[in-house]
């Protein structure tokens, strides 16, 4: 304490190399040191990126041009897999099913999460409530899927028992062509909505309170403040959340695998499940890779479009 207060901050330290200002020299030396340290810190993540992401992606793209059953060497077939993909009605059907799932899942999830986040911000400060909202997210997708499968079972499920006792007909939620995809989409909404709400809630916390106070002074209603203040200022966060959840939603697999296994009659044969079945069921790794590349292209395009439309990189906050 004494030393610090008795030493005035000196702009000219005496250490330094010849011909270079001592300060710049120190910074450079520090940068060199930091660079090495940074490289070491980045190494694990970089290695993970190279081994688990870049290399599999490149290899996947290569395999999409081959016929490959994993156990014998891949055989180059040019664009054959892509030609098959274009003419495969099941691929287009599974893409359609996936889009249907994403629209319901993201639509309901985003609106509900936004409502929950705004309620959490405007009505309560309770950490317990925030915790409760997040609870389903602590469960694994497979467990959530299985629990809902039992609840909604047409013959034995408690959900259907309740429906019947209330005088309604039983609904084959996961066993009917029309109901299966919306049901799976809503099961995943139930599991993810708390997490999405929490992300949006964090975004809401960043909006300065004085903006609301000023609006209140001007006599604005909660509804008006939501549309005129909350939504515009939350937009960048909402956009990022949307991009993340849409990508995640397109990759739905586990819930389908444990509840319907793609059925009935391919009604829930989402793209990831079709890819999995082609690869690990039918050993058509070349074709499965081509479908994965197609999914990558679709997701990239959707992300770019979303990013542009929502202007996710910019904020309206003065």
């Amino acid at each position, binding site marked *: 304490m004494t030393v610090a207060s008795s030493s005035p901050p000196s702009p000219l330290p005496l250490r330094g190399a010849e011909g270079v200002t001592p300060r710049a020299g120190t910074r450079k030396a520090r940068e060199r040191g930091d660079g090495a340290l940074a490289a070491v810190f980045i190494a694990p993540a970089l290695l993970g990126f190279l081994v688990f992401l870049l290399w599999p992606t490149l290899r996947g793209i290569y395999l999409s041009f081959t016929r490959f059953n994993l156990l014998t060497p891949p055989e180059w077939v040019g664009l054959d897999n892509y030609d098959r993909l274009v003419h495969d009605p099941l691929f287009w059907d599974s893409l359609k099913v996936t889009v249907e799932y994403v629209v319901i899942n993201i639509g309901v999830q985003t609106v509900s999460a936004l409502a929950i986040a705004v309620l959490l911000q405007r009505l309560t400060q309770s950490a317990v409530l925030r915790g409760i909202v997040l609870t389903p997210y602590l469960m694994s997708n497979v467990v959530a899927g299985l629990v809902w499968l039992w609840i909604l079972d047409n013959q034995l499920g408690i959900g259907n028992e309740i429906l019947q006792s209330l005088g309604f007909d039983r609904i084959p939620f996961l066993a009917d*062509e029309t109901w299966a995809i919306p049901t799976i989409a809503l099961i995943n909404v139930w599991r993810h909505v708390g997490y999405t709400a929490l992300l949006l809630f964090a975004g809401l916390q960043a909006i300065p309170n004085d903006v609301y106070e000023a609006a209140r002074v001007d006599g604005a209603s909660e509804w008006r403040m939501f549309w005129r203040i909350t939504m515009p200022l939350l937009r960048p966060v909402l956009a990022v959340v949307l991009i993340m959840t849409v990508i995640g939603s397109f990759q739905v697999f586990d819930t389908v695998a444990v509840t319907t296994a793609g059925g009935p009659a*391919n009604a829930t044969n989402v793209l990831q499940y079709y890819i999995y079945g082609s690869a690990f069921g039918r050993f058509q790794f070349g074709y499965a890779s081509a479908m994965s590349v197609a999914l990558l292209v679709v997701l990239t395009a959707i992300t770019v479009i979303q990013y542009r439309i929502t202007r996710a990189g910019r904020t309206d906050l003065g």
Partner: protein
Amino acid sequence: MRLRTLTALAGALTLSLVTGCAAGEGTGASANTVTYWLWDANQLPAYQACAKGFEKENPGLKVKITQLGWSDYWTKLTAGFIAGTQPDVFTDHIQKFGQFADLKVLESLDDLGIKESAYQPGLAANWIGQDGHRYGTPKDWDTVALFYNQKMAKAAGLTAERLNSLSWNPEDGGTFEKAIAHLTVDKNGRRGDEPGFDRHNVKVYGLAGNGGGYGDGQTQWSMFTASAGWNYTDKARWGTKYQYDSKTFQSVITWYFGLAKKGYLAPLSDYNIQSNQANTQVASGKAAAAFDGAWMISTYHGFKGRDIRTALTPVGPTGRRATMMNGLADSITKGARNKEGARKWVAYLASDKCQRVVGTYGVVFPATPAGTKAATAAYEKQGIDVTAFTEPVADKKDFLTFSYPITNYAADVTALMTPRMEDIYGNGAPVSSLDQTNSQINRILSQ
């Protein structure tokens, strides 16, 4: 110093990532150990007992048995073939055999000197590949019969004798359909064959639903299609053409899934492979009867408060009863680490000595006649009558037994037939749609 410490820490983390990837071998393979996989938890104690006998006869050799559930089993086995972590020996299923033969992951077992006559008829021949080599040794067999709830049958006035003398045809369903209709009860207590029966509000289905049956219909429709004179393919083994476009097949399928429309067979929407298979429907009292395989005997007889009996499959238009007779086998993987030990273990598994031991546990019918006899005696001891399963094997005059279709591209056939049959069963799609699926399948087979 600080930097060096951090560098060392980060370096160690990176290294642990790299080595962590390679550390997960864990197959337990060694020169003295034979690794063996099976999927049926009920059979684990029987094979553990068998392994004990083997280890006694082969000092220094140990058998490490791993049991995995049916779905995990095949996923893990596939992953094992790819990663080189496959077991030395595994329980093989005929449905997967064609694919494994295509992938060339099985070791030839020609030198084990398996004699077909040493096993129940047809079991040994199924495991010979198209190249003429043997890839599996017969292990056990199963047939299909009708499990029924005795209390419900009694209430319907159906005796065991009556249920064992049923016949069917695709036109009016014969006495079999009449019995199933009579076992069906609606919400108001009316039976399926009584006037005013409400097929939309059924309390107890006469016959439980067990899904669309993929491409084989083992416990769904195969006993009907076979007793009507239909075969899956143009040849008994390694056929090159499927026959789902046959008018006979399609007429049987129309009649069978038509039972659901009449309210006698539980609809597809009541079935789920995870939560509500046929046995669950019988256990919960939602169905009075179900076709199921011999591997389910212990399960059905284990239902608390239910007296479950079994009856023969009905006589078909050919004048014979039919049931699929499926047999499992033991196969050695090409990448086995201990091939010598694996051969010894497989030879032991296929021997009368081991199969008799397995038989005494009363959980499965071993492939050798002596093993079968031991199993029948063990079931009898438990008070379980297994005649409905053993008679088709013993009486070849009145019974037709047939195998799973053995062809290449079995996984593709299943992938194409599963949604097709579900569409017919669940959505009422026309059976003529099978023509197109059949062409697709045959196109794949002709590649």
